[in-house]
């Protein structure tokens, strides 16, 4: 039987550790992806991910279900990301490209994808990552939440605490900057 997030939360509060394990399993990757795309560093994104679940576990008894568990989790993660950015006093970084391993690349290729297509896809991903670092934090967060996590405008507005219209404006401005930057790099 598949429990909903809220049911798992209730069971966790009741002392069922396995239920919280299930929640971690369910949301570990999305939270890590959110942190990575927001701050741009793999190692720090992992730390943020771990800290998010640690804080969630500690605050679980106070969770009253006024929001979705996922939204609550996203809020914790975003606050941690914001703290990280302020602490580091810098924009997200683009990590130095890791060593290129042809075997790894071949393993990462889609079955119908040639090695040339794979290289092009990786180049494009790097260009996107680089362009994203140019965005102000608010625009980047709006794009990440909408594009990669599929949140509605209203959910994003609730999460970041701004009007709905502001979310749309941030998205428009952010996408416009990305359009210009990606055209510059011609990918």
């Amino acid at each position, binding site marked *: 039987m598949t429990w909903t997030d809220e049911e798992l939360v209730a069971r966790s509060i009741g002392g069922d550790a396995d239920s919280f*394990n299930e929640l*971690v399993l369910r949301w570990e990757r999305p939270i890590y992806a959110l942190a990575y795309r927001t701050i741009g560093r793999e190692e720090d994104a*992992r730390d943020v*991910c771990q800290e998010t679940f640690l804080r969630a576990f500690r605050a679980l008894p106070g969770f009253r279900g006024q929001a979705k568990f996922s939204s609550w989790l996203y809020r914790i993660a975003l606050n941690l990301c914001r703290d990280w950015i302020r602490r580091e006093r810098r924009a997200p970084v683009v990590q130095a490209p890791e060593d290129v391993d042809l075997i790894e690349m071949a393993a990462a290729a889609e079955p119908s994808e040639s090695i*040339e297509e794979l290289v092009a*896809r990786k180049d*494009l991903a790097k260009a996107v990552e680089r362009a994203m670092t140019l965005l102000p934090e608010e625009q980047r967060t709006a794009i990440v939440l909408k594009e990669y996590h599929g949140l509605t405008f209203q959910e994003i507005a609730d999460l970041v605490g701004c009007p709905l219209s502001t979310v749309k404006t941030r998205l428009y401005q952010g*996408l416009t900057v990305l*359009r210009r930057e*990606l055209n510059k790099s011609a990918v």
Partner: protein
Amino acid sequence: MTDMTCTYGGDRDQTLIAYLYDDIEPADRASFDAHLPTCERCRRDLAALGGVRQRLAQWQPPLPQLRQPSPQSPINPQSPINPQSAIRDPQWWRQVPVWAQVAAALLFLGVSAGIANLDVRHDANGWTLRTGWLKAAPIDAAQASRSADDAVSKTELTALEQRLRDEFRTVQAASVASPQPVRAATAGDADVLRRVRAIVDESEKRQQRELALRVAQVMRDVTAQRQADLSKIDRNIGYVQNQTGVEILKQREMVNYLMRVSQKQ
């Protein structure tokens, strides 16, 4: 020339974004649907932003090694996330900055000195450097037997003390009984003095020998530890060189591959 002026009535940018993500009120959708065929600028922007979205989809974060929970090892409710195991990266050390690597090397040397039980002391004999866990210097059999022969046991010293006391007592008794044999008493003192001097000389020689043995032992320990450290460092350097060689090889292969691809094109 195409007219690029947009005549849309509402907030054009926000509606465009809502339309792009299909997160829009039905009435606004219908209105924008009606507007699009008449507006070249909106059609162009919509297509361009749709293209941006397609390119954004190519950006995937590197996959971390996520924790694989099992029924046998559930997360401890007192510590829901183990920072060491929740998300692991086996190559974390590749991202360690140089200063941290230097600090780690210094720490390693410190720990090595600790393991080697490096002991530096200063006493009446000057500075003493000792390594290893054996406090007493292991002396080989010949030296040990020689030292045993040279050593004066406590029993012998007690006997000597007793004999000296007896002699003093005898001398005192003789001097009280008759003042004549002073010469004999003086001869007895000289004999005692000679013996004491001989014992002191012997003791000094023994101490010098022991000191020499200890110094030799320290030198042996230091040399052995140094050789062990050198061989360890040599092994580590070899490992790093191998790794570097492999990395260079990979880079070369990649460059060659890219060259071939670019030449084909």
